[in-house]
């Protein structure tokens, strides 16, 4: 499976997805695939089965303020050195995304962290609860609307 074959395969199965390749002098760059929300889990399944990307590197989110939240996941094919960075955009105000946990077991903790930090509810996640912050914490800190030095008496 080379990067070219991967791009062809993605183009066949997901014609509306946008695929960006890295610069030719940087062969380690991933294929950046921008997907619609309903293609998120099917693409992950295709990446795992057809592209051989069985290694789940990480999953996170980015807050683009008025434009909404981006959910990102990176998967790698360790044998063929092909990496895919999948992205999907949640509409402004939306905070729900299908979960990759049924496809990749590593997404379990990564998505719990996204929920903790951004408030994104992952549908289909087996056990969505806060992972890093206290269970009774209010607010989702990595959103741009949350101040870094929010006070929390009496500790700070």
């Amino acid at each position: 499976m080379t990067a070219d074959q991967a791009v062809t395969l993605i183009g066949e199965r997901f014609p509306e997805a946008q695929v960006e390749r890295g610069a030719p002098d940087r062969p380690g760059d991933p294929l950046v695939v921008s997907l619609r929300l309903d293609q998120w889990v099917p693409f992950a399944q295709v990446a795992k089965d057809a592209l051989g990307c069985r290694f789940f590197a990480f999953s996170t989110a980015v807050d683009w303020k008025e434009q909404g939240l981006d959910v990102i996941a990176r998967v790698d094919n360790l044998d063929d050195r092909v990496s895919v960075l999948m992205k999907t955009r949640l509409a402004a105000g939306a905070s729900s995304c299908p979960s990759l946990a049924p496809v990749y077991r590593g997404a379990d903790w990564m998505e719990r962290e996204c929920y903790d930090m951004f408030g994104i509810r992952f549908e289909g996640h087996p056990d969505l609860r806060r992972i890093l912050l206290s269970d009774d914490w209010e607010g989702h800190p990595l959103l741009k609307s949350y101040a870094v030095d929010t006070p929390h008496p009496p500790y700070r």
Partner: protein
Amino acid sequence: MKKPATQIVPVWRDFKDLQEWEALHQQRPEGDKHSALFEQVTEGIHNFPGGFVVTTAADAFFNWARKSSVWPVTFGLACCAIEMMATFASRFDVERLGMVPWASPRHSDLMIVSGTVNIKMAPMLKRIYDQMPDPKWAVSMGSCANSGGPFRHGYFVVKGVDRVIPVDVYVPGCPPPPESLLNGLLLLQDQIAHFRRTGRRAAPTPKVD
């Protein structure tokens, strides 16, 4: 059969669970930690002409024993824990000062808070501190424990462990090298040398040049 004397402090089986026990201990005033009779006797001896020799000698002896055998509870939180482990290890050995790192808080005298305290960990830290028997001391190691350190502005970081427990010695550094921590522990030993038997400490720490 003679009725047993009323106990000042309730015993474990009177409580439903650990939380109730801890709540009681936090509310207990300082006074009833020592027997009132004992305090009266030592004050009497101290005020008797010439009696101060006995009390100060006894204080000096007991404080020497206390400071020569301070057992820290292994409470490593973050990066400073690695330097604390290095202080306990071969090159900077604290066992020559009598400090044996001990895992159980019930059998230790000192808590070296080494690392950042955050809001999730603070109640656990307080719980471990409460489980330590008196007299106990606390050393705040590193800038995170002193004041929140480089993470001070983070939403989840406590701005210094002295917001959670009373601290006796602050050791600055990020992380403080073992020499600094040893300096802090020796300063603590000097403080302990001035510890009064009744639990009230002498106000100023001795000047160090």
